């Protein structure tokens, strides 16, 4: 039985960039554990030699010709952006480089 602990939640929340407060962590951990217990039924299935199925379609990828089809739509796209300046999207200062 999988059990997700509140400490695991902190790691998951960080990876997913979702804030989970310490008070919420226990509840979220319980909820996720419930889902994982449901999912644990999978372990009973015999899947030896079974190819994983990523996709319902058993077909190959089409490839596109290398031709420019897009035009500049910056104005339309940036009209719905939360923060732009001089054509750039703004974010709080990125420190690590």
């Amino acid at each position: 039985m999988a059990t997700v602990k509140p400490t695991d939640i902190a790691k998951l929340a960080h990876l997913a960039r979702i804030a989970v407060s310490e008070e919420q962590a226990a509840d979220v951990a319980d909820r996720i554990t419930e889902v994982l217990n449901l999912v644990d039924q999978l372990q009973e299935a015999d899947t030896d030699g079974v190819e994983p199925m990523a996709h319902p379609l058993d077909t190959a990828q089409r490839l596109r010709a290398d031709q420019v089809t897009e035009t500049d739509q910056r104005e339309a796209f940036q009209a719905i952006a939360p923060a732009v300046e001089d054509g750039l999207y703004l974010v709080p200062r990125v420190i690590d480089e």
Partner: protein
Amino acid sequence: MHDQTMAQLAQALQRGDFSSVELTRHYLDRIQRLDSTYNSFITVTETQALQQAAEADRRLAQGDAPALCGIPLAHKDLFCTDGVRTSCGSKMLDNFVPPYSATLVNNLQTAGAVMLGKTNMDEFAMGSSNETSYYGPVKNPWAVDCVPGGSSGGSAAAVAARLTPGATASDTGGSIRQPAALCGLTGLKPTYGRVSRWGMIAFASSLDQAGTLTRTAEDSALLLNTMASFDPKDSTSVDQPVEDYTAQLSQPLRGLKIGLPKEYFGPGLHPETAAAVDAAVKVYTDLGASVQEISLPHSHLAVPVYYVIGPAECSANLSRFDGVRYGYRCDDPADLMDLYQRSRSEGFGEEVKRRILVGTYALSAGFYDAYYSKAQKVRRLIQQDFIDAFKQVDVIMGPTSPSPAFALGAKSQDPVAMYLEDIYTIATNLAGLPALSVPCGLVDNKPVGLQIIGNYFAEARLLNVAHQFQQETDFHARTAPGID
């Protein structure tokens, strides 16, 4: 006018019995008068609708207009609509007005269909009751204290309340068929790849498929004729000609081989729902179909597989909602981490966050093989069950949903109970097969649905099978009490 099917309205428009502007105004009036009860629309696009209707009238007057020209429709609010807010039922996209339209929206617009507005839905299509919407729950027109099903609850309630003759919808694990069953409608989820996913906001890319919510199978066929297309912009769109789905509707069913999976009639199925399904099957045998019991031995694993693959795909698909380029951004972020965490935590609702976290867990180091990879293998076993079954039968029938509509709030605190709502519908998404739900009876004065599953790209056959049932029964023609 609103008592007519889409097919009937289309003929009336072509004949000139009334104009598209009159018809559109009629539905807009109904929405304005009645939707405060159902909350089925998030956005009503009155001005654009009347413009489109006037344009449709010009085309109709010139003759040679396409079948759907002038027909009002509603779009589930996860299909991007150029210049019209597309919220996906989320605070995250409450301010999102895309400068482009989904391929299927363009297809319908080109054919002259009129957009009445955008319908309510579970946030990011994650839910089976339409209670996770940022815009509040949708009420079932058959019983306003009950859910309409989800995630396409707004589309279903709008059609059931006769606020639109038909609506687009999407189905990732049952999100068309379950609300169709709970609202007494015909709901079709086509084969994966039949309708373009371009411009449809993704929940789980390998499961999502757009489809129809209408009163009749004939209406579904009409709508699918226009919605379906090969789309070079969607790598998973299938390059196969679109059939005329209305062509086979009248074909007799003599000799049809129906499979009833024993796993779909086990404990957990409401006895009266089971009785309604049995009665429906009897209608088919009377029409000359033969019935045999079949087995889909991995059926019980469909929900577990789905709750790994769906969240895994969604955890990545929803990473783009980061407060940088569009959508919700938190106030005064202290730093980059704060921008991400608060924008996402404040912008997403609880169920969406839960699924993102579950998906993150399933893909994380050390769990990938036990969860994600295992689920993909079991997914193949589930598909193989269907491939084997379709060697013996033409269609598979069973209940769409275990029971009729439940009360608002009854399952919203119990995710696992909610997930089991989709116990009969999820497997077809995993396999990519087409399936539809038709109304087959009332339980506690609430509709229940018969699910019909077909082989890959057998939509025409499915619609034929559903249409013939609707020639013999009148469940699809019934109107919810209180709807005039």
